[in-house]
């Protein structure tokens, strides 16, 4: 019997997901023994052609890393779908757009302008931005062209499983691989992770969610035992899917939301916005003027960046719709 085929295909990623696989430690050898690597540019010397040559649907497990942000990654996403028996969106970027998805706060043109012309450290007197096709002696050179809007994998192709996280928690990756290799995958559409939010695993003491003041992380030394949110630090834990063992809050770092929305939530950011604005300024709320409420909510800097850090492309609004230069 031939070994199951595994491919790890990158999109717009930072390779953090790859590194997280190394955290499997020696168990990675078991994975390598148990599978046949069909494609994994980070680790295996296989060419794109090799992948293209494989029959459609012949790769048992495809982990797709990263968001879809240009025509190349879009093509890779489609290829991944074509070749995969089980396509897993691996990591926050593939699942929700992730950090690259924050590009959706600006237009493609403004991003190119900023990157190639307007940034202070750039010298580009001719104002050249990458062209898709550049004619040179002996033919044409092409570079991938940015999409106007960064997308999650499932906004491009159908996805079978989701494994969120930035990077995905090792335990969940192991669970998914074991399930896939033993042929015991859950129903399609399953998100590997908890049904509950990060708070379920968080060991911090939760007593009273009446928040009087929002504090930014550098402003206080948080109490190591108490809920960070209750200390005024914006922790996305309540609105974020668990399964990560709450590793960030455990080491005094507030949850940033990389596991995405919970199982019953469509929009992580709006959910957290509602939760936080409900409990902030709860004390003595009756005597407060509209102006004071406005000041109160102004304490939350950059709501979009705070609440949608990993999920902007997958949110209800998907992107910013005005041009922001």
């Amino acid at each position, binding site marked *: 019997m031939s070994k199951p085929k595994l491919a790890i295909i990158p999109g717009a990623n930072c390779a953090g997901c790859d590194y997280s696989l190394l955290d499997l430690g020696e168990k990675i050898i078991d994975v390598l023994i148990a599978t046949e690597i069909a494609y994994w540019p980070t680790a295996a010397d296989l060419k794109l052609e090799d992948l293209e040559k494989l029959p459609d649907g012949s790769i048992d497990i495809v982990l797709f890393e990263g968001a879809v942000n240009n025509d190349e990654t879009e093509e890779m996403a489609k290829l991944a779908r074509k070749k995969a028996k089980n396509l897993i969106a691996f990591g926050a970027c593939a699942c929700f757009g992730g950090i690259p998805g924050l590009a959706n*706060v600006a237009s493609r043109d403004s991003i190119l302008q900023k990157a190639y012309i307007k940034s202070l450290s750039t010298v580009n007197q001719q104002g050249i931005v990458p062209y898709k096709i550049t004619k040179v002696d002996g033919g044409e050179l092409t570079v991938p062209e940015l999409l106007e809007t960064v997308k999650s994998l499932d906004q491009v192709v159908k996805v079978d499983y989701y494994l969120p996280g930035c990077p995905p928690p090792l335990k969940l990756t192991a669970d998914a691989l074991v399930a896939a290799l033993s042929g015991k995958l859950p129903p399609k559409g399953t998100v590997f992770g908890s049904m509950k939010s990060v708070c379920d695993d968080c060991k911090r003491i939760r007593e009273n969610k009446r928040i009087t003041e929002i504090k930014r992380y550098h402003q206080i030394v948080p109490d190591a035992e108490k809920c960070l949110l209750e200390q005024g630090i914006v922790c996305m834990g309540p609105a974020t899917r668990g399964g990560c063992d709450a590793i960030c809050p455990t080491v005094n770092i507030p949850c940033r939301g990389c596991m995405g929305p919970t199982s019953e939530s469509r929009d992580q950011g*709006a959910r957290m916005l509602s939760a936080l604005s409900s409990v902030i300024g709860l004390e003595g709320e*009756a005597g407060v003027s509209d102006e004071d*409420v406005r000041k109160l*909510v102004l304490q*939350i800097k950059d709501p979009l960046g705070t609440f949608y850090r990993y999920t902007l492309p997958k949110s209800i*609004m998907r992107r910013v*719709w*005005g*041009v922001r230069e």
Partner: protein
Amino acid sequence: MEKDFEPNILVFACNWCSYAGMDLAGTSRLQYPHNLKVIRVMCSGRINPVHILEAFANGADGVLVTGCHPGDCHYISGNYKTRRRIMLLERLLEQFGVEKERLRLEWVSASEGERFANIAKEFVEQIRKLGPNRIAEKLRKEVAVV
């Protein structure tokens, strides 16, 4: 201003004050534009920002959230939560590139039928001036690509 633009406005109303105020506008036969359609909830405090974003993403040109006046909430303090949520949501909407004028929070009591009719007229005018919300259209195009 675009010709033939009929704003599509979604109204959330609490059962006790605002919905009753709208009923009163009806029984008093106060005429206001037909562009508003109402979803009744028991308290304005039930309204989740998710639903407001959904409305804008789905083609609403304006969203009007109404509740009992401060101090009059049937559930004591639900409207205070609404106020805070809407004020923070306004900022988020602006970041999303949705004019914050498309979202409005008004307190309407059960006796303020006339006030509601006036708000309705005013808000429809305001949205007419802003023009259509194109997000839904653009989102549909994005989806069509997939």
